[in-house]
C-alpha cells in the first residue's frame, strides 16, 4: 500500500493505493490520525480510487478517524470507492455514516 498527501483548496487529500489489510492498515491509521489529531487539518479527503481491497482492520481505522474528526469538529470525506470497498462499507453498515462521494470533483464541491 502507498500513501501520498497533497494540499488542495484548503484541505489535505490522502491518495491511497494498494491493499489496506492487517499488514498495511497501521500505516493508514497513522497518516489519517496524524492529519486529523496532530495537524488539526479541518478537511481530510481520502482518495480510495486505487485501493483494491480493504479489510475490517482498515475499516476500523476509518471509523477511528471519523470519530476523531467529529470530536474535533473537522471533516473526513471519502471518495473513489470501487465495488470491493463499497461492499465492505455496506456489510459494515457504514455507508451512511461516512461522507462518501463518487470522485474528487464531487468531493471538493461538497
Amino acid at each position, binding site marked *: 500500500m502507498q500513501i501520498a498527501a497533497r494540499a488542495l483548496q484548503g484541505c489535505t487529500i490522502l491518495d491511497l493505493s494498494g491493499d489496506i489489510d492487517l499488514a498495511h492498515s497501521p500505516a493508514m491509521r497513522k497518516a489519517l490520525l496524524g492529519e486529523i489529531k496532530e495537524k488539526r487539518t479541518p478537511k481530510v479527503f481520502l482518495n480510495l480510487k486505487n485501493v483494491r481491497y480493504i479489510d*475490517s482492520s482498515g475499516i476500523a481505522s476509518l471509523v477511528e478517524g471519523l470519530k476523531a474528526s467529529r470530536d474535533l469538529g473537522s471533516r473526513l470525506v471519502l471518495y473513489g470507492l470501487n465495488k*470491493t470497498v463499497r461492499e465492505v462499507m455496506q456489510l*459494515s453498515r*457504514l455507508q451512511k455514516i461516512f461522507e462518501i462521494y463518487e470522485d474528487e470533483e464531487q468531493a471538493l464541491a461538497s
Partner: protein
Amino acid sequence: MPSGRTNTKHGVNSSCGKCAFHSELLLKLQLESNPQALGLVRAAIERATEVLHFHEDESRAIVRSVDEALANVIRHAYRGKSGCPIEVTCRHLHGTQSGACVSGIEIVLRDSGVCADPGKMKGRPLEEIRPGGLGLHFIRQSMDEVEFSRKKGKNQLRLVKYLAPAAPPTAPEGE
C-alpha cells in the same frame, strides 16, 4: 443448503442417504503468522474460486472471509506474534443432493494458537459505530457454513461456500 455430511479421512461424505458428497484437494498452504502473507493467500484463494466458476461477487466474499479469518488467527490466536504456523487447506466439494448436483468450496484453517472462546466469536452489534469486531460479521454474512472446533491442540475453522445453481438456459426468441 446441503446437510447431513460427515468429515472423513478422504473428504466429505453423505450420511443422510439423499446426498453423496466427495471432495478433492485444490490447494494446501503452510504459512507463518505474518500479515504480509495475507496478500498471497488472497490471491491463491481468488484463483481457486475462479477455477470453480464462482461468480465474482461470491469470489470476493470467499476471499474476504478467508482473509478475515487469517487476520483473526494472527491477532487473537497468536496475539500478534509472527512466525507461528498456520495451515490453509482448500477443497472442491461436489456431489448430489436429492438428485441435484451441488458443488462448492471448503476452506479449513488450522493454527496452534490459544484456544478461541466460541462464546466470544460473535462480533459486535453493527449498530455500534466503533472500531473492531467486524471480521466475524463479514465471515458469517458471506459463507454458507462456519464451524469452529478444537482438535488435537489446534484451532480449526471450516468455511464452506456452495455454488449457486446455474440459471436455466433461456429459450431463443421465437420458440
